[in-house]
């Protein structure tokens, strides 16, 4: 871990001008991922811009009546237990509580969670020679290495890492909007466009530019608060990353599915959604055979490696069981 400068701006403008003037700086929120990566030598910022004095920790109803705005610095534990979240977006509360440990959730923020980096072993340890994400052009150690936790969808031969976040999977199913402030003012990115697939540039996890800062996450008003859930499969009962997870948000009226959104975690470089698969649920009655077809459509094109073959049947089972449980 290198020596560094530490600054703690009091307002957003100062934070943004600091990041512009110190391109090797990093924003510090909860620090639960950044400090880890720093100690490992993956991150080596010369300046730490501590944004914890910027406010940005509100959890408040949107003026549209029904939607919710969550500040980028709201702590994961505060979001998970907030009554507006547990009542309207149980899937988000469940996803947050399925992640990490109470201590980590107390420190980790919503903005930081959006920026969480992969747990790929070959990325996390710079003493592994090959990682295109950490060191573009150096190859992918996971491709022919121990790839049990790696992607089965949307990967490239440059990178088969997965996004490790539970929260982001729920946000994807909730179609959250990410509010960002940068040098040219504010912009909003749909969660589906926030994380990216590795393609030829696996070093880029998101579409956030280096001089921008996440300020808030907006959730649209829920259509239905009953029929949504987060399902996570892991190697032990707590404090383990998802092997596969699913966030399912259904609208059900008069015994029929009126809307459906399914996001998968642990399978791709970003939360994985397939609109065509979700469309198959429109207007149908909940039924296992349909759910199995939806799962197959979601996993169409899945490709596994030596150690992660299990993820394809596991993801299928997670989707089917998740849909059965959410629609019950």
């Amino acid at each position, binding site marked *: 871990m290198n020596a560094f400068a530490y600054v703690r701006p009091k307002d957003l403008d100062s934070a943004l001008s600091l990041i512009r003037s110190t391109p090797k700086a990093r924003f510090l929120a909860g620090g639960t991922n950044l400090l880890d990566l720093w100690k490992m030598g993956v991150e080596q910022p010369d300046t730490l811009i501590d944004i914890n004095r910027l406010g940005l920790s509100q959890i408040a109803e949107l003026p549209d009546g029904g939607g919710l705005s969550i500040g980028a610095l709201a702590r994961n534990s505060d979001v998970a237990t907030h009554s507006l979240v547990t009542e309207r977006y149980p899937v988000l509360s469940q996803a947050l509580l399925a992640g990490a440990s109470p201590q980590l959730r107390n420190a980790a923020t919503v903005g930081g969670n959006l920026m969480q980096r992969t747990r790929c072993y070959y990325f996390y340890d710079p003493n*592994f020679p090959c990682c295109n994400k950490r060191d573009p052009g150096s190859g992918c*150690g996971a491709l022919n290495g121990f790839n049990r936790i790696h992607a089965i969808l949307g990967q490239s031969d440059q990178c088969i890492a997965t996004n490790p976040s539970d929260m982001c999977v729920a946000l994807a199913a909730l179609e959250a909007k990410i509010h960002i402030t940068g040098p040219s003012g504010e912009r909003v990115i749909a969660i589906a466009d926030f994380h990216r697939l590795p393609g030829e540039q696996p070093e880029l996890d998101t579409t956030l530019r280096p001089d921008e800062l996440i300020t808030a996450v907006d959730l649209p008003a829920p259509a239905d608060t009953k029929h949504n859930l987060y399902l996570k499969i892991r190697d032990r009962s707590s404090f383990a*990353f998802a092997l596969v997870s699913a966030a399912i948000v259904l609208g059900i009226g008069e015994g029929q599915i009126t809307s459906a959104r399914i996001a998968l975690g642990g399978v791709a470089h970003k939360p994985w959604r397939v609109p065509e698969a979700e469309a198959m649920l429109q207007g149908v009655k909940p039924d296992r055979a349909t759910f199995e077809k939806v799962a197959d459509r979601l996993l169409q094109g899945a490709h596994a490696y030596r*150690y992660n073959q299990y993820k394809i049947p596991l993801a299928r089972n997670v989707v089917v069981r998740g849909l059965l449980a959410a629609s019950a």
Partner: protein
Amino acid sequence: MAMPDNPTVIGTPRQRVDGKAKVTGAAIYAADVKTDGIANAYLIQSTLASGRVIEIDQSQAEKMPGVFAILTQRNAPKLQPLPEELSANGLPGESRLPFQDDRVYYQGQHLGVVIAETFEQARDAAASVRVRYQPGELRTDLEGFAQQAIEPRLALGRIKLQDKRGDVDWVWANMPQDRLVDAVYSTPIENHNPIEPGAALAIWEDQDHLTLHVSTRGVDLTQRVLAAAFGLLIQNVRVICPFIGGHFGSKGFSWSYFIVAAAAARLINRPVRLVLTRSQMFDSMGQRARTVQSFGLAADETGKLAALKHSTLTHSSMVYQYTEPAGALTRLLYACPNIQINHRLVQLNYTTPCPMRAPGEAPGIFALESAMDELAIKLNLDPLELRLRNHADKDDSEQKPWSSKHLKECYDHGASKFGWSSRNPHPASARDKDGRLVGWGMATAIYPARQEPAAARITLANDGSVVVQSATHEAGTGTYTAMTQFVSENLGVPMEQVRFELGDTQFPHAPVNGGSFLTASVAPAVTAACNNLRDKLISLALDGPAAPFTGVARGDLVLADGRISTQKKSLPPMALADVLSKTNNQQLVAEGEAGPGDAYQKFAFYSFGAVFVEVRVDPDFGEVRVARVVGVYDVGKIINPMLARSQLLGGITFGIGMALMEGTIPDIPTGRIVNSNLSEYHVPVSTDVPPEFTIEFLDIPDPNMADSGARGLGEIGIVGTPAAVANAIYHATGKRIRDLPITPDKLVGV
């Protein structure tokens, strides 16, 4: 031995005497020790698994803030090779000394150390050091190099690794297929992962006198290693370790890091602290090697074992030949006339392995007890019934009677507590309300008992306090408490008046903390010291001009409640302190020694147990949860039921971890560990501990063990449990998993 006067302390539940110090932070661990002028060290480690170092470029590191010096092969002191008794092949630890040559044998090997003012400065500078290598042949694939295996004779200098009796081959060739089990079981590399990492603080008083505060389970052994390596007189090396934050088999023996700390302190002439990081705990202090175990079982028409063959393929590092003795107890757990055990060892570019949590027994009994389950299914016998039919009435491997064995009572009692008799033998026949498959499995547990030579010194002061010293260890298991109980019981003084001191080479010798033999070894020495003190004290009370109990018969004096008294004469009781004062003594000192007696030639000493497990398996997801455990153990006399239960709770939980999640994973192309952290190396969390946990002890003293009849219970909990879990998973699902850990990927869609 005189009967204790206060027979209510041993065998009763007592809270830890060191508990408050630990939870308040008052307990001082090696890394906590403060002294003036401490410099901090950080290791420079190899990032290549095999080859030679061409150049260590430290030019940038030397200029970095706070850096005092960098120690590498270039400026390392010439260390003396360790003598045979500390370095013979098969002994645990790594006797290759640091920084003496340019060879690289595994990833993470220590190549140098940066010494700086602060830990952070040292770490930062170490990260800037660049090492150029000449790569060598890479050996990381156990099966791929199996044809180069050697067949070592002994593990730990005493455990037979190649053995046979009868004619296994003949039986095998003549037994019908439906009475044979022929299967391969495997266990992964595992790391001990105690919560306290390795830590050392080296202080040289002068060129010839070294003190090392270190987290070790062998202060005397560490002293010998340091004295040998630096060519010092043994009495000029002092090693101190009053608390160990767990070791589970690591932290003994010779490891590079504490020698490096001593060499670094000598180089800069200041105290040097070297604390390992979590990641370094995976490559700097041993690990359990992977095992691939081929098992053959044959049974006759009555369900009795006719032949048993167990061949283990495992690995050590390139510099040492420690062998995980997985087959050792296959020789004797069941009655079987024809047995063949074999161990093959491949030297690979991985760090040096060493004992870990029931070395040999844990992986070996997993294989044996899984194979027994498979045999029971083949023979259409209840798994418990198969074990009863093959009960060993003596130790057939050494042709000795058991010192004491009540395994059948463990089976009976455990089965009844668990409700085993209502088990439906058909697999995949039960589901819970959530649709999860329910399975029941069981296994036998066994662990050898031993006594090693030990000594203790006891001092009674004229303020009534009793201080007892022995160079033994507190690994978190309760040594302070148990030994205090022995002193309290033997001298009739309240536990509060007794202070037990340990972990210092200036105290009388005690063995390493391992092999579950601490209590069986040290308690008899403590008792002997107490008895000697009592004799001296009674002499003071009876003899001499100022003696307070003149004229009383020796046998009529009683020590109880911190006082000496007699019923025979109308003399008032007298506090022990007053006996000293009245006779003008400041203090009274006695020593005691104990060691294994003739019984060890005559009998086979083993602890036994039976463990029953209920699992729930989600058939879609492959997630396994242990819902219920019943373990019944025959471990001799129980000294402290509260702490004994805690140890078994921990041991069985280790077993659950071994069964379901633990595993160190090397990257085969580089030999580097991919999960050297507690985020990705999974140990059980509190919610993995089963909600229903029954642990019982038969509490039958072993008549042939010295002193109290306690045989030892440190490691038996992890033995048997992994097989019981695997057998329960088979019963739940109908799928046999022979490769640990049984993670969801192996069970998805069962």
